[in-house]
């Protein structure tokens, strides 16, 4: 009998796949069901954000960040606006800061709901997708009430906000938040003690703390492995230092721990929003600096200077000093940072988007080493990637 040989199977999980959460291509090398190697191929959503942002003024660039990480839109806007404000050396008024914080935390809840729904439907818990999107619709209603748009808001401005909150915002948010613990308890009751869920996620896609740090992972991927690093606590920004909240940590670094971390983060976000709503100060929502923010409309009738400022700001834009800054926020996926280099003109020289999902996805081959094919879907869902963030 001739020599029996073995060969491995190379399987392509193509860019169009129901469970890859976007246009991600994976080349799996399999020996039976066991994965020997995974190679993610990305770039199928590369949009050229960074180059596009070099050709626009700082104000015009506000439209781009929500389209990069389209699930946590307010957090993206907050990151960009904070970076430009840092470059200019200004801070937004306190009321604007608190409103930004409330909307960012609502974005975080909305994003984690999408994670929960899609992670569940990947494992065939089809009803949870409906429940989570139903809750997300209520958050999107609040966003629409504030900014006019469900997703790509364009509400934050350099130096504050576009306009003040509408009446009834606080009551609306309170009413939504009253129901959140009951709903989260329902979803946890469906999943956490569910034998199938536990067997499919416990011990699966394990990433040790050492590996997580070596691959530059942040966010729930890093915290699920036990490393306590949250940008809101480490480098407080935007008023987070004024509120008390906990940062949940996992122990094993498996998919189940990341699920627990995200569920608890939703509850903590609710806690932050309630504190912020109680302490919402009055005052202006846009900084008074005429070189940065547009003057109020009623001044245009009276003051020629205001008209000139308006004209200069709209046509040429703001002129930050030459220099470079890095400002980071905690997005639901990890550390989202903007590194902006300016040369003193009205356009940035370089806008670098430090994306959380790009680094987190690098750790996927480590997570799937000697896993099985069924674990691939669980692993991708547990990293919670957004391909717009990966490819930019």
């Amino acid at each position: 009998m001739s020599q029996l040989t073995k060969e491995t199977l190379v399987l392509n999980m193509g860019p169009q796949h129901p469970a890859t959460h976007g246009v991600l291509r994976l080349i799996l090398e399999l020996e039976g069901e066991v994965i020997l190697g995974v190679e993610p191929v990305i770039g199928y959503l590369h949009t050229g954000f960074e180059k596009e942002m070099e050709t626009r003024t700082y104000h015009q660039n506000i439209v781009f960040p929500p389209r990069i990480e389209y699930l946590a839109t307010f957090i993206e806007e907050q990151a960009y606006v904070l970076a430009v404000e840092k470059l200019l050396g200004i801070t937004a008024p306190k009321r604007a800061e608190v409103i930004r914080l409330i909307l960012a935390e609502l974005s975080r809840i909305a994003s984690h709901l999408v994670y929960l729904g899609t992670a569940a439907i990947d494992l065939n818990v089809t009803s949870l997708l409906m429940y989570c999107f139903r809750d997300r619709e209520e958050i999107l209603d609040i966003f629409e009430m504030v900014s006019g748009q469900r997703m790509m808001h364009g509400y934050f401005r350099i130096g504050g906000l576009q306009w003040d909150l509408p009446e009834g915002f606080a009551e609306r948010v309170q009413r939504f938040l009253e129901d959140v613990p009951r709903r989260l308890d329902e979803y946890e009751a469906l999943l956490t003690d569910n034998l199938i869920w536990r067997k499919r996620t416990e011990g699966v896609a394990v990433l040790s703390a050492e590996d997580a740090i070596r691959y530059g992972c942040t966010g729930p991927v890093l915290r699920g492995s036990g490393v306590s690093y949250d940008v809101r606590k480490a480098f407080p920004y935007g008023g987070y230092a004024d509120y008390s909240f906990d940062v949940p940590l996992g122990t094993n670094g498996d998919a189940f721990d990341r699920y627990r971390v995200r569920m608890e983060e939703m509850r903590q976000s609710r806690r932050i929003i309630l504190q912020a709503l109680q302490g919402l100060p009055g005052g202006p929502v846009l900084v008074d600096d005429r070189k940065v923010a547009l003057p109020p409309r009623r001044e245009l009738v009276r003051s020629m200077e205001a008209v000139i400022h308006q004209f200069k700001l709209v046509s040429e834009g703001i002129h930050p000093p030459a220099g470079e800054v890095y400002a980071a926020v905690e997005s639901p996926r990890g550390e989202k940072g903007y590194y902006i280099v300016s040369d003193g003109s009205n356009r940035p020289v370089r806008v670098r988007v430090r994306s959380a999902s790009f680094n987190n996805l690098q750790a996927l081959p480590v997570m799937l080493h000697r896993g099985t094919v069924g674990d691939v879907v669980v692993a991708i869902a547990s990293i919670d990637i957004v391909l717009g963030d990966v490819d930019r």
Partner: protein
Amino acid sequence: MTRPEDVLVQRLGEAVVGQIRFRDEVTLVVARERILQALEAARDMGFRLLTDLTAVDRHPAQPRFDVVYLLTSVEPPAWVRLMVHLAADQTAPSATSLWPGANWLEREVFDLFGIRFDGHPDLRRILMPDDWEGHPLRKDYPLVEEPVEFRGHTPKVPSQIIPTSKPRHA
């Protein structure tokens, strides 16, 4: 209390050829030959997380490229930025020996800027198609805008409409 960046400057000694301080952030400019040593020293000092590895094209200024490394220390929380100036055809040493997470970051820099990294295990394009020519984020690579079709008139594309002002207070 000495800041971690200042301790790092002391430890690196003459590898640091310059410092840029702006808005309470510090960027340490390191000589190209000593960058791996500097990164390793920073990592051993506590900056264990490689947050970002990117490049800036300063064309037509010389040296053309800046390769920027952003490192984070988790406990105590601190950021430090290391920068290397590279001429147009110079290569940089690869940081994959220190952090496996630098793999894709360096591939992205190669893809978008054309900077090669010595010692990288698999340097090829990551975001653009494999047979793409050119490096899009370079300043001499155009944005490739398609003008809107009107009859009898070709309007300006957005980057021609938005005025470019000269650098003020540079």
